[in-house]
């Protein structure tokens, strides 16, 4: 019956939402700190170390600073859209976390609580839809700024996302052929029982990784905010917390795409590949917590990879970016899809032609 709403379940989900959003924000906050530390370490510097021990309070200080900055809205901008832009960037960045399976079910207060806000059966499509919406935030903000440089940054972001979304989509298709499901939870369960998807789809993973970099607007694909060409890129006109939202949403995006990559290719909350964890004889709750920790470790590794690449590789030229997207990644993704399709078909046919 539809009317029989389980109040307790709604409560649980609400709590879960709050926790997940807060955790995402916190992790994004400390991702900024980690970014600066990693950059420093890779460049033989020390990084922030003044605010609190080891500079641990630096993100808080940065946040406070952003809050107290003067809020400037350009006269000739369209005010509504100008505010909508960063809000949307932030919103879409956070929304993706709703369908991520953070862990197995835990047993609490006599209830089985799934550590996933919503197990949508079109999971991965939802991720795609929301992530592509993210670029609207950039587009709207850059358009509303009424500044040529901003607009150019926005255009670049849009065309880049379109180009790389294609390759990403094709990669996902080959992944879907292997798993046969769209739900992230089911994918994780499959990977728990079998091998991680990265072993079936190594090329797919590589392509996905590159596209994820492009989707997050991270170096070497951060052409939309190329300082040396576009002043500040799409957020040239932004100041105060609205700028903070843009910068912050980048880090949340990074975090979420790390989570998605871990879930799709590295078994999500699966602890070790090729190991049957249920043989360890731990209780359900402990398993869930260990699984969550395993997921977080994977995510941290990905975050480090994001930063490591950023502080290694210079930005692409625009034609190089488009060349890479259209003439290399998409053909490779298509090839990957064809080969995967062939193998899957053969397997279904019990290896007979």
């Amino acid at each position, binding site marked *: 019956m539809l009317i029989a709403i389980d109040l307790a379940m709604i409560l649980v989900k609400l709590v879960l939402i709050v926790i997940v959003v807060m955790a995402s924000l916190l992790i994004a906050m400390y991702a900024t700190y980690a970014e600066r530390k990693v950059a420093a*370490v*890779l460049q*033989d510097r020390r990084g922030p*170390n003044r605010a609190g021990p080891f500079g641990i309070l630096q993100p808080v200080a940065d946040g406070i600073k952003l809050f107290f900055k003067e809020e400037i809205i350009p006269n000739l901008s369209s005010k509504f859209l100008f505010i909508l832009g960063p809000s949307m960037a932030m919103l879409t960045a956070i929304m993706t976390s709703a369908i991520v399976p953070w862990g197995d079910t835990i047993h609490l207060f006599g209830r089985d609580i799934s550590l996933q806000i919503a197990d949508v059966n079109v999971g991965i499509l939802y991720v795609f839809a929301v992530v592509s919406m993210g670029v609207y935030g950039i587009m709207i903000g850059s358009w509303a700024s009424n500044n040529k440089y901003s607009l150019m940054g926005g255009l670049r972001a849009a065309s880049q996302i379109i180009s790389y979304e294609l390759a990403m989509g094709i990669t996902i298709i080959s992944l879907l052929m292997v798993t046969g499901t769209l739900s992230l939870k089911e994918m994780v369960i499959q990977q728990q029982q079998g091998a991680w998807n990265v072993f079936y789809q190594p090329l797919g993973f*590589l392509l996905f990784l590159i596209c994820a970099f492009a989707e997050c607007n991270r170096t070497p694909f951060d052409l939309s905010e190329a300082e040396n060409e576009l002043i500040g890129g799409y957020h040239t006109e932004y100041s105060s917390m609205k700028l903070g939202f843009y910068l912050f949403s980048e880090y949340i995006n990074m975090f979420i795409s790390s989570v998605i990559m871990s879930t799709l290719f590295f078994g999500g909350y699966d602890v070790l590949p090729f190991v049957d964890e249920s043989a360890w004889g731990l209780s359900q709750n402990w398993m869930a917590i260990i699984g969550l920790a395993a997921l977080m470790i994977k995510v941290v590794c990905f975050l480090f990879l994001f930063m490591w690449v950023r502080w*290694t590789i210079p930005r692409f030229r625009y034609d190089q970016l488009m060349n890479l997207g259209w003439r*290399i990644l998409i053909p490779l993704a298509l090839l990957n899809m064809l080969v995967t399709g062939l193998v899957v078909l053969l397997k279904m046919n019990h290896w007979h032609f």
Partner: protein
Amino acid sequence: MQALTNRAKLVERKPMNLLERLYLPAVFKGMTITFGHMFKKRPTINYPEKKRPFSPVFRGLHILNRDEEGRENCTACGLCAVACPAEAITMEAAERVPGEEQLYHEEKYAAKYEINMLRCIFCGLCEDACPKDAIYLSETFAPADYQRSQFVYKKEELLIPHPIHEPDAYKKALGNRVQRGKVNQ
């Protein structure tokens, strides 16, 4: 054409092959390089907590010297001001009256003595010019300030602490000067 030096290198402009166009090998190479830098020793020091030792001939803020009894050495001869290439020093002389023998070493002393630290180039010529060993350059920086006027250091700021009344501060202000004298000789 023959190159003037044999260091000229011909730039190769052949189109990239597939592997190069994938960028990945180059990316991995770069990443191993940056990863290696994680374990390098960092040359930066944590400044206010840790300070680098200055060289014994470092020329920092000026100090107006006193003799062992705490009397000011300067006799306001003006040689330092004349020697100063940046014209940073101004002074006014005054005559010592009876009863002030404890304060001033000579019969004439500097009633006013100012150094404009924004003009000063810390060349140390004033120290060389002084016949009375009355001025020398210490091992401290001129600290940052908000106003230009604050950089005109008055006599009170320049004078070394009294060696008898404040022996600790005197020693601190003196710094490595004793050793430095040895270096110069």
